[in-house]
């Protein structure tokens, strides 16, 4: 519950004004509805009485009929304003909420980022946040408006008709409606959570099916996965049907409550007339107002049926963040004469691993030097690069950039000076230029074109629109080698002082590899480069080679 409460407070904090106004208008809509019907009933009955009694000349027709018109138009206007305000405010707040969730995802530890499955995070940012739109629109606002209106109605009916009628109508709705709605919330909890969970599984499964379809087809798993998805769909729809049944039952209960309350108002009012306590017009007022007040409870069943789903979604959205060290804000001064990068006495072990990957590891990368790390697969070359880029933290030892510990550099500064090109860089859907634009705040087509030429990619792209060549999801549309080169071009645009390259020419033929490496060197003549490699072309271009 507390997560839902937090979300509500966040939404209210973001949109206080609009929500307050919306709440006032919600009450106005309900109150005007009751007043409109009550006044109309009273007016007709009173006119009829006056006509029968022959006192039509003293009966004031104009004020009540003006009131009816005012209430009718005012109610319409209030409803329009209320809907617009509350929806606008809620949707705005949800955009902020999505950004909050994405920003938190982006701050996650690097290892968690690497292991992140896109679909799962997508579910949190899209589905969970979407599930929360009902919190204000279908739960809190209608509930508050309903309670206020019923309380007001009790007072007004007590005054204008008879205290008994006021008590019967307000009490009837509060008690009958309240009971029916509490049942909805209770019964709807499990199916609403089940439906949402199954839908999220369906989303995840669809994404995995499409992304992994090459393997799924070859290994004959496609139909199995389709069946898994059919099962998720089946479960989601079964839960949705259960939820619909619960809601319909509540609708039946609320409809009956409304009929009983209105009938009670009619009978009680009629009885009071028969006993000469009130007039028929007042009785009509009571009955018609009672009829209209059904609105105070009828709009709530959807919101309450969704309550369970909202709670789970809120817990996902508001999940507590793991504590992070305070990031430095002040840039340290590079130590004069210090090497570009130095690794001193590093130790690194994977959790649960018996043997550490690195133990007492030292390395110095001089200014402008190209240094290659060689060694068989799995000896920790990538680990050294990830440590040097600050993606992993060493168990012991210190890493310095320009003589200053890595942890002392503010993130923006560190990334401006040091760039790692990992083994599996990711591309995004969009044009080649869109991908290159990720590297720099101000995209510059000329620089981008130069970078593409430097990695010998220009010719390959020329026939496909050059920088405007469109890529599919995750950069599909390029061959493995082209992907690799585009990622290197992106790194060139960062213009780093220190460049860390993990198997930079993987997937390239020998000639292309040599051209790419020469292009890199020409494009970044001053950069100090540390590369993990075992290819002859890469080792040949290094000033120094260290075996791991």
């Amino acid at each position, binding site marked *: 519950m507390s997560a839902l409460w937090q979300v509500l407070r966040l939404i209210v904090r973001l949109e206080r004004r609009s929500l307050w106004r919306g709440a006032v208008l919600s009450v106005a809509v309900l109150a005007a509805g009751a007043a409109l019907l009550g006044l109309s009933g009273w007016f007709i009955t009173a*006119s009829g009485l006056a006509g029968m009694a022959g006192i039509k000349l003293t009966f004031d027709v104009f004020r009540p009929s003006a009131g009816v018109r005012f209430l009718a138009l005012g109610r319409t206007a209030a409803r329009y304003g209320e*809907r617009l305000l509350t929806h606008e405010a809620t949707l705005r707040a949800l955009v902020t909420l999505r950004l909050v969730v994405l920003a938190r995802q982006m701050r996650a530890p690097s290892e968690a980022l690497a292991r992140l499955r896109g679909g799962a995070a997508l579910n949190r940012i899209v589905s969970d946040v979407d599930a929360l739109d009902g919190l204000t629109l279908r739960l809190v606002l209608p509930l508050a408006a309903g309670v206020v209106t019923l309380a007001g109605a009790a007072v007004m009916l007590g005054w204008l008709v008879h205290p008994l009628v006021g008590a019967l109508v307000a009490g009837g709705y509060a008690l009958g409606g309240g009971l029916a709605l509490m049942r909805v919330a209770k019964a709807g909890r499990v199916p609403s959570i089940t439906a949402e969970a199954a839908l999220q599984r369906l*989303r995840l499964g669809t994404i995995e099916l499409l992304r992994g379809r090459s*393997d799924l087809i070859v290994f004959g798993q496609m139909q199995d996965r389709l069946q898994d998805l059919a099962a998720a769909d089946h479960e989601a729809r079964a839960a949705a049907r259960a939820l619909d049944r619960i809601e319909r039952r509540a*609708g039946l209960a609320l409809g009956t409550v409304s009929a009983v309350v209105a009938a009670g108002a009619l009978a009680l009012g009629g009885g009071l007339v028969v006993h000469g306590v009130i007039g028929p017009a007042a009785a009509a007022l009571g009955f018609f107002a009672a009829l209209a007040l059904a609105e105070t409870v009828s709009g709530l069943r959807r919101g309450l049926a969704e309550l369970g789903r909202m709670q789970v979604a809120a817990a996902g959205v508001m999940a507590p963040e793991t504590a992070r060290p305070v990031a430095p804000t002040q840039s340290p001064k590079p130590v004069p004469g210090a090497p570009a990068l130095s690794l001193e006495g590093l130790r690194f072990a994977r959790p649960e691993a018996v043997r550490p990957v690195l133990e007492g590891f030292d390395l110095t990368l001089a200014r402008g030097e190209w240094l290659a790390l060689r060694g068989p697969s799995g000896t920790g070359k990538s680990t050294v690069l990830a440590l040097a880029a600050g993606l992993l933290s060493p168990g012991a030892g210190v890493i310095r950039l320009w003589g200053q510990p890595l942890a002392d550099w503010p993130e923006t500064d560190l990334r401006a000076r040091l760039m790692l090109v990992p083994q599996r860089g990711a591309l995004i859907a969009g044009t080649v230029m869109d991908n290159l634009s990720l590297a720099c705040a101000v995209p510059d087509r000329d620089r981008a074109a130069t970078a593409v030429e430097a990695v010998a990619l220009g010719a390959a792209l020329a026939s496909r629109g050059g920088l405007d060549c469109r890529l599919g999801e995750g950069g599909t549309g390029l061959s493995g080698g082209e992907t690799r080169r585009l990622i290197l071009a992106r790194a060139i645009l960062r213009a780093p002082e220190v460049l860390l390259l993990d198997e930079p020419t993987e997937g*390239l033929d020998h000639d292309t590899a040599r051209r790419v490496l020469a292009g890199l060197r020409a494009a970044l003549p001053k950069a100090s480069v540390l590369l993990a490699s075992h290819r002859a072309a890469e080792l040949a271009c290094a000033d120094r080679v260290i075996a791991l």
Partner: protein
Amino acid sequence: MTIATAPSGSAEARLRLAQAPQARALRAGAMLGLCAALIWPLQAALVAWVLAGLATDVVAGQSFAATGVAPAMTLAAVLGAGLGFAVLGALQAALESLAAGRLFTAADQVLATERGAVLARAARRGVHASQGPGSGAESAAAATSAAEAALVVQKLPFLVPALTRYGPARWRVMVMPAVIVMLVLPVSWVVALILLIAGPLIPLFMALVGMAAKEASQRQMVEIGDMNSLLIDRLSALTDIRLMDAGARTLSDFAARAEALRVRTMAVLRIAFLSSAVLELFAALGVAMVAVYVGFSLLGTLRFGAWGSGLSLGEGVFVLMLAPEFFRPLRDLAAAWHDRAAALALAEDLRAAEAEDVPQVLGLGALAPRLPGPPRIVLRAVSVTVSGRRIAFPDLDLAPGTRLAVTGPSGVGKSTLLALLAGQIRAETGTIEVAGVALDEASADGWRAALALVPQAVHFADRAVAEVLDPRGLGEDPARALAAAGARDVVARLPGGLAARLGETGAGLSGGEARRLLVARALLSGAAVILADEPTADLDPETADAVTEGLLSAARAGATLIVATHDSRLVAALGRELRLPPEAVV
């Protein structure tokens, strides 16, 4: 009374097609709803009778005792009327609930069918389909996995409200206003006339709103897909984004998309809210006119419009309680209008996706018994268009046990050839013969049962390594295959070993380690034909040799080995080379 709609024929036809199997159930639900709506006039008559009786008695005043005339309303009569009103109200609620249940069940079936169809279509999409600027640059973006998932999860459910609300509202619109006018006419022709004049204004207005609503819904649908597409790519690239300090840019990109979706959604809602406000206004004005007429008639100021001796109080109350019900179905229809618009926009989406010429896989991708013949491969005049480029392949005859290196510069069609051989895309011209039969819809699954793939791009399913290694569930011990692929220590290093789960692109493994696992998977499958795409690309010479040796060991056991590669050592080890000429690409 039918509502004129914009000429959106094809989307409407598609929507009709979707609901056709459930048409009877949907109509039955609508009929039940109609029955529920017909109860209100009875309730109105009861209320009119009570109020008229009470008023008559009050006007007759204290003279009951003197005249000996019994009062029209006794306490018992009042209570009886109250009970009757409550029972009728409960009956109405029950009928409505029953109707809603019928409608929901039917709409749910429609949703199930359409969802199944979308998923089945996704499963049949060719492997190179999303790589296709050639197959339509715009469609490449539209068909991202996240956009497709959004269609399945977020957009298809838009069908349900359209079917449960719009259809029944249309039936009520066709029946209820006529019924109300017929009930009112015997009481007062003026009221009937007011209703008849005010009524048609509404459909006129709706026709105007209709077009705008559909367009707005369409934009919203597109934006839902776009936001999902943008997000999934950024989420998969978060490490790169951190390394390039692109976090702020990514957030602002996403903020722009999320904001655009909000604006599109609000545009849809604004039209919906405005149209229902305007309709409410019409209804309010119509009812107010009726009320004014009834009020003045009752006072005796107006003496026309009713038949005979003027309007009585009971008749006035009855007419006034019916007037809003004349407008209610019209308002319901207006409220359901944007549901309908959303469903039409969705139908348009579906229609466009179905009409699109997306490359298809051959067969179902299901487990099937292997084709009986020896796994001979024959290619004749095969060509295919990928990324807008036409690639023609040389004719091939590959006997079982052949070892073939496919070489050539990047982009020449090496991966495409492997996809063709695996039936992951279809040849446009020519024939591929496998195991003595044509590779087609019927034979593809059986052919693939003898196949294993070592892909270039790594995508690990969210499953335990043991399952990843043995996707067909053969249940064999992976130890030997792991050893042959030089991957035994890879698994040993993973936390949890064979039970570990890997990241989507193999996080937790180096590129070489991931590759060795995939080779192990191919060896473990006992395939008669192994297709490998750059299997040694990111391996050091020692590991590359180990992998090559692993693949060759499968070949020595009789398997055909077809390898796309740049690695000259691997080419040499395989012995036979097919060099794809660049000029074949047009």
